[in-house]
């Protein structure tokens, strides 16, 4: 199993009356609530935490793109990856991901990832996402074009990385007559492309067809299970067996000395993440055309609770989060590994308004008392589902 340390870089300093005074942590939450002076300190703490995760033995560090919100203050994950490149030497830098369809010119992503890949000596993993509904409002991108733009941007970037330039690309949304990126990426044929997603059937089929690793992100356990199974089934239909390296599970994780302590410590911060960070009204979450009508119908019929209405008990029970003592988390992770067949685990991170000290302690416990149990012992053959780390 490979372990990735994930950071959202949240804005924890929301006003006390946030839940009463604001409908949303996205789109319209006034940016006067962001204080750049405190932001300076936070960014540096967050980067310290990511750098420390390399020393703790994580295989990769994850950053991601979100716009104009308090949930994650990382509109450019590539900038954060750049900040990490020169302060790390071994870990993969997983950008999960760039919202490629939100760019006016996706070649900019092809260029920036190529820069990072060359600079890091080939340590980059390049996630691609559509961007969430809110971000189409925040950046003025027509949500009815969201899928088309995603696929078209993907095709353009992939060609830019792999095809000798210059070439001409004439799509519906993106056109460039002289695509010829300098630098080219270092990894051949190109940096690994991952698909972090909450999973529409279309995205899963696309990923399975291209053999891109699929990482289920922040969704109830049963749903993650369904998505990963769909991926495996799709792969089987295509005539191959999906490997654990193609299957990932991302979940907010917190470890403390005992289960009781872990719960007590993590609860307010997990509730911050779901109640505050993910407070998004439906008209921001699904602007017109962002969801297919089938997805909307399924969603309505399933009657899924919005994240902001979940209780801590529900978060634990439904497997939105992974919280406990090292032994509990280890056992649960072993079950998850067996049940989901995953080879990529994305956890860790400083959750919501958690302190630096708490986040660090949890990461240390996870790295020292959970991770080693999933590493092949020296000289021992790798067990199924726990491949040796590729270095």
């Amino acid at each position: 199993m490979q372990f990735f340390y994930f950071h959202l870089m949240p804005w924890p300093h929301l006003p006390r009356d946030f839940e009463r005074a604001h409908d949303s942590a996205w789109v319209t939450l006034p940016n006067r609530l962001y204080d750049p002076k405190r932001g300076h300190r936070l960014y540096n703490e967050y980067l310290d935490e990511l750098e420390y995760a390399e020393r703790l033995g994580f295989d990769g560090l994850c950053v991601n793109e979100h716009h104009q919100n308090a949930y994650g203050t990382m509109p450019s994950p590539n900038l954060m990856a750049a900040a990490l490149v020169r302060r790390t030497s071994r870990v993969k830098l997983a950008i999960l991901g760039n919202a490629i369809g939100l760019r006016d010119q996706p070649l900019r992503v092809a260029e920036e990832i190529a820069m990072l890949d060359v600079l890091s000596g080939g340590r980059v993993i390049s996630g691609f996402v559509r961007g969430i509904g809110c971000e189409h409002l925040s950046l003025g991108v027509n949500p009815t074009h969201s899928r088309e733009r995603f696929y078209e941007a993907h095709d353009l970037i992939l060609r830019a990385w792999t095809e000798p330039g210059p070439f001409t690309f004439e799509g519906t949304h993106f056109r460039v007559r002289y695509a010829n990126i300098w630098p080219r990426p270092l990894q051949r044929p190109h940096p690994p492309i991952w698909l972090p997603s909450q999973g529409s059937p279309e995205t899963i089929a696309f990923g399975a067809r291209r053999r891109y690793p699929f990482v289920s992100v922040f969704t109830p356990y049963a749903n993650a299970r369904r998505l990963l199974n769909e991926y495996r089934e799709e792969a089987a239909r295509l005539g191959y067996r999906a490997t654990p390296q193609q299957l990932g599970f991302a979940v907010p994780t917190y470890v403390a000395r005992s289960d009781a302590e872990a719960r007590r410590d993590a609860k307010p911060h997990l509730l911050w993440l779901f109640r505050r960070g993910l407070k998004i009204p439906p008209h921001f979450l699904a602007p017109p055309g962002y969801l297919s009508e089938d997805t909307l119908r399924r969603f309505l019929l399933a009657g899924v609770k919005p994240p902001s209405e979940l209780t801590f008990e529900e978060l634990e029970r439904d497997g939105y989060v992974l919280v406990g003592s090292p032994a509990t988390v280890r056992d649960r992770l072993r079950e998850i590994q067996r049940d989901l067949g995953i080879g990529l685990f994305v956890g860790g991170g400083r959750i919501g308004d958690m302190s630096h000290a708490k986040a660090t302690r949890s990461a240390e416990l996870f790295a020292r008392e959970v991770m080693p149990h999933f590493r092949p012992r020296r000289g021992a053959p790798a067990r199924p589902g726990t491949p040796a780390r590729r270095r």
Partner: protein
Amino acid sequence: MAHRSEVIEVRGVRTQLFKGGRGGPLLALHPEFGAGIWAPYLDALAARFHILAPDHLGFGGSERPAWLDSIDDLVFHYVDLLDQLGIERTAIVGSSLGGWIAAAFAVAHPERVERLVLAAPAGVKLDGVPRYDYFANPIEDVLAHLFRDPTRAAQLLPTEFGTEVIVRGYHELTTLARLSWNPYLYDPKLQQRLPRIRTPTLLIWGDDDAVLPPAYADLWATLLPFATLHRLPACGHLVAFEQADAFARLTIDFLSA
């Protein structure tokens, strides 16, 4: 008033068309809400005109072809519809989105337009006067913005509410987004071209329009050299739905003059 609806193919695209009344032809273009029904204001107009009230493509009972993404597409579609019905020249009434289509039609095909009635048409932008955002507000808030008297919104709502009603509403709002997400509810070229319209035009605007505030009425009145502006007191954005009688009376007087 007796009316019927039929689904016809216009260049292979299924189009739902409501018809009723006797008299000269009157093409009635619905706003962004209120498709798929024979609206009450059409009853009053049907006493004097032969009403043709199609559902725009992607609204009500009309199909949404993959190529639909601009107001021009609808203008061409209505040229095809009139050709197919053998109507050379017609009066057009249009409300909000329908008014935008009607104005774009008159710019492109003035020879086919007898007279124009535009009720709070969308399609232009006035700096410093925001247009209400349909795409970033809860549906209850949207409905409340359409009328001065919010209870009037009931006529747009189905009697039974359920998943399919929500999906249908999402479908229509998606069509609107395809047509006008960005630029939002306007076309910079239309503004530049409106002064070409020489067709006699009646502009009707509610004093309490909370979607396109009355400053837009004044802008349209200056852009259209042959227009008369009539403001309706105590009336919101969906003029023809909020004050059906006043709207019909003004329209009939203007078209019959």
